[in-house]
């Protein structure tokens, strides 16, 4: 083991230990645990959440993207759904939306650093993914799903990566796997092997984007299609 590698391992250990300790830390002074919630295990996500709160986003758009008043519903916004790594949200945050029919225009955040913008974007996508997952899982009266429509969806969105899929007749398991593939659920790591794993990063990004845009009907159709495969 090289000296540099050893240093990285120590560094990762410190980060993970800090994350673990933070997860167990009771409410700290000046931190509204009732509103912001307990400290998250992932320090990057926790930082993103705090950044989202500190710059006032949660005031209008809701901490978990349940909007207040006239604010845009980020959970269902097409604009957010089409964003990739802040390519849409970032420029919008910098400029604001001064021309609007609403009482209060969306302010501009031109003074924020790129890292702060990235943190806001990260929390918005995280919040949207959590919310959309819950919505799809709890959706009722969706029906059995249309296998033909599922096939069309699969060919448009999935087949470029998934030429073949393992057979699985369990609808609930399929649904869970579509929404949150287990292979992409690993805890974050700064290990270089994983940090530079572009394939997994791209897959995580892609599935996150899909999750943010699935309707309950889309998922039901996909399940029906995958079950119909021989």
């Amino acid at each position, binding site marked *: 083991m090289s000296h540099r590698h050893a240093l990285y391992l120590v560094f990762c250990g410190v980060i993970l230990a800090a994350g673990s300790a933070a997860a167990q830390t009771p409410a700290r002074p*000046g*931190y*509204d645990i*009732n*509103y*912001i919630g307990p400290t998250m295990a992932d320090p990057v996500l926790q930082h993103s959440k*705090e950044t*989202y*709160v*500190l*710059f*006032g*986003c*949660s*005031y*209008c758009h809701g901490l978990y993207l349940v909007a207040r008043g006239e604010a845009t519903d980020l959970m269902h916004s097409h604009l957010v759904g089409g964003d990739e790594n802040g390519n849409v949200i970032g420029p919008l945050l910098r400029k*604001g939306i*001064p*021309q*609007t*029919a*609403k*009482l*209060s*225009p969306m*302010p*501009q*955040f*031109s*003074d924020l650093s790129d890292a702060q913008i990235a943190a806001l974007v990260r929390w918005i996508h995280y919040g949207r993914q959590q919310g959309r997952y819950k919505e799809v899982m709890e959706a009722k009266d969706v029906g059995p799903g249309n296998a033909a429509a599922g096939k069309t969806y699969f060919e448009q969105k999935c087949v470029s990566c998934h030429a073949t899929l393992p057979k699985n007749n369990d609808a609930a398991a399929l649904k869970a796997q579509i929404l949150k593939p287990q292979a992409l659920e690993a805890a974050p790591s700064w290990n270089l092997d994983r940090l530079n794993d572009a394939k997994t990063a791209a897959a995580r990004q892609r599935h996150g984007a899909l999750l943010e845009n699935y309707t309950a009907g889309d998922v039901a159709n996909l399940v029906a299609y995958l079950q119909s495969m021989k």
Partner: protein
Amino acid sequence: MNLTRRDFGKLALAGLSSSALAQTAGKPNRSYINGVQFGLQPFCYHDLAMNRENRPILIQRLVQNGLGMVELHAVWYEPNFALPGVSADEARDKLRNWRLNPPAGYFRDIKKEFDDNGITICTVYINVGDSFTDAEIDATFEGAKAIGAKGIVGSYGLAVAHRLGAFPGKHGMYASLHNHDNLSDPDAFSNEASIVKGLAYSPDFTATLDVRHFTAGNGDCVGFLERHHQRVSAVHLGDRRKNNGRSAPFGEGDAPIIEILRLIRDNRWPITALLEFEHGTLRTGVDEVQLMFDYCKRALA
């Protein structure tokens, strides 16, 4: 400057050119600090849903923050009919019917809740709009009056204000015009010209100058108060950055908070300073309001 409570009341009621403004000042109370009557816009308690059920918590927090005046949203005392299974139109009709036929003694009891805790309701915040019938507007004023408010305020534009002008005088009250910073909407109250235009619709109109939004719209708050203080009943006191900038903690934006407070104090204007914040904080609402209030107290020390 040391101004006694008696002085404040006299000033509030004497020598003012607007009949509406003569009604704006309430009895000074525990958040009357060195010549400025402070209150709260309770939107500040971000974690506290504004509804009837949470009203006791609101009162508790106001007392905890040492505040004796509040601009109370109607939703703190009106029932919510927008329940699952109830259409928007149906809920709106039920609310209108409730306003027209409130339970006997309902408002008196609510007023007592606040009175018992030393809190004056200066205004009721309610967004009167096109869906309001004339009778409903009258009922809104009567309800607000019954809980002790001197006026109503809301986020309506010029068109609604034009219609509203005839109502407050009938009830011995005023209606206040509240600005945002939407400079692209010709109906919106957003700059000096639009507010002045609205004030001209009725002698019973006052302005509630939202300092944050006025600053974000590149307005000159100090200049506005210099020119129009006789028609200003309150300021929503918070901080924001210019050029449609973001909200900021007190002292970190472009709003001239200290100058505004000293203008009110040194000129003995009966303008209520309603603390309001929309900036983000990791602190509790109570802690953040206290920081803001302490900032203002230092400005007046």
